[in-house]
């Protein structure tokens, strides 16, 4: 028997996909705008550097346009993965066999409640 209530994996995944694609749009806009404004069309200008440690340094447009957003994405991405993304049961595999999909009715041996990790 199947109900019409949407599976929690579908709704949480959809929500997460929207957040992630919005983050892609923000990262793309910020990186391209910053790099273009600071790093393109500078003619014969000398590069300016942001100096860090152990001899590590970056041209300023690379630092602000790429390194900083990269670190930000790592921090935000990890936060998103550990605190925002929801764990959900992916369902149980059909009985171990080499049959083609469709040989058994879809969902016939599935459960989404309390199933152990595969």
């Amino acid at each position, binding site marked *: 028997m199947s*109900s019409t*209530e949407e*599976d929690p994996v579908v709704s949480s995944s959809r929500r997460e996909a929207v957040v992630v694609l919005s983050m892609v749009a923000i990262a793309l806009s910020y*990186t391209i705008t910053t790099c273009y404004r600071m790093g393109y069309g500078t003619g014969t200008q000398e*590069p300016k550097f942001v100096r860090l440690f152990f001899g590590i340094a970056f041209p300023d447009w690379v630092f602000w346009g790429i390194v900083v957003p990269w670190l930000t994405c*790592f921090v935000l*991405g990890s936060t*998103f993965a550990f605190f925002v993304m929801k764990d959900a049961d*992916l369902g149980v595999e059909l009985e171990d066999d080499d049959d083609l999909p469709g040989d058994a009715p879809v969902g016939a041996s599935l459960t989404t409640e309390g199933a152990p990790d*595969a």
Partner: protein
Amino acid sequence: MPNAGYGTLFMLVLLIAASVWLGTVAQRVVRKGAFVKGYFLGNRGLGAWALALTATVQSGGTFMGFPSMVYSHGWIVALWISGYMIVPLTGFAVVGKRMAQLSRRTNAVTVPDLFRERFQSPRVGLIALVFVLTFMTSMMIAQFKAGALIMKIAWPGSGTLALSEDSGQFRLGADSLMGLRKAGVPETTVSKLQPLVGEAFADKGELKAQLTKLLVPGEFDVSGNKILAAAEPTDWLYFFGLGIFALTVVGYTLIGGFLAAVWTDLFQSVMMLFGVTILLVLAIPAANGVEAATLAAVQQTGEAFAFGPGYSKDGREFLPLGLAISFFCVWVFAGFGSPASVVRVMASKSTEHIRKSIFLLGGYNLLIYIPLIMICICGRALIPDLEKTDEIIPRLTLKLTDKLPGGSLLAGLVLTAPFGAVMATVSGYLVVIASGLVRDIYQRFINPQAGPHEIKRLTYIAMISVGIFAVAMNIKPVEYLQVFVVFSGSGGAVTFVVPALMAAYWRRATATGCAAAMLAGGGTLIAFYVSGFLLPDPMMGPKSSVRPFYWMGVDPILWGLAASTAGGIFGSLLTSPPDAAHVSKMFDRQETAQ
């Protein structure tokens, strides 16, 4: 010319031995369950580390084409690769959970399997299969060549460091001229070649330069390729490398299937991290810091090396604004669109492992790409005017480890990383291609009742046949390796990204819509590549003889994605809605009927 030495060969043998051992361990795991799911999907047991470091890492090109680009064009390559900052999230959090769930609900083992069952359409499965085989086979053939070249480099005394596609001693002999006459090259042209007989040329480019001086343009256009082919040497080290590479990679993949591919990939990813860290620690002090290295490189080249759109010897614009936007998207969408990546997400153990892999891959990408850029900038300062720029990592490694105790082994560790990377790429693709042939063609269309033993036997035959085919294609090796890599990556993205989103989230999506999305995306990309081949060089983007047409200055991946989206939406809305009961099975909570 510097040589790789015995340390490199030793490390390579060690890597091969480790890979075969991993294959045998994987075999033991596969034996525990049903053959197909175990062999092609690792019994859906991938943990966070295996998922993170093998699903979206573009390992084959990381140590090869990418460093060459940084050396040649400067800091702008950081912007070219910057899309990787968000790849860990997009690779796993956009469709990852849904693909893993759908593959369980449909009992799918392969990507075509999944699309076929999700849309209840053999036609959709077949189209997906054709694209998977097209893009992955072309990529795999190119990677066989890369593997053979690296094996050749590792051979002590080979005198070869580049991954150049044309290195070797080119020589025209009297017999070559005879052969050219027989092949129909006009006598007037052959007679002009007389002064070159017996002369050795380091590479194809050098001989080509001489030919363009001796022959009039029309003559070169007609007979140039035949003359170059006649002068090409028999490169025994290359063939030896090809044989060893093919035996190794087909061997351990055959033994352990999907898990062997994944574990070797994980192993080489860790090795690559070691290699990059060692090189970074050695390169920065040697170049007196990254700032001094950049300024030294700017002195050699010009300010463009430190700015956009990048430095090029011939004045080409490496990364104008349109391409900068495009390439950001290439990595983002290739990350979750490639069939090889989707299969690995399908094989993930649980959502917890998917979440953890976002963190792991984020950290890994940070530690690989930005350091690699700094290393190559230092490389430009330490080894200026490198003729073959793809030599930068091997040459820099040998230079920096030369005086260190155990330097040869250290160099070996760094130099074998690309070999491991290529092995892992090929291994993963072998599994996907073999599963396509056995599961999606034989079991679907020829013998649906095939038993486990027959499937197993056919899988081995398919894998060996694919290996033999790839070796045969590389006896006369394909040119423009990097183009195949980019074409295949972009192809996976434009063909499968929109269908994957439709399959995961759109109830109204239909089989016709999915087929239209795949055909429109893949077709657009192929059309743009064909057009680019026919049109003159626009002097933008990475230099290559086989380049796409950059309509409005934008890479075809964006046009392909737009076409695929339009195809998917209109194709779905113009056809009848899918069966409600089936859609419910794919989207709604399911209870077990007891």
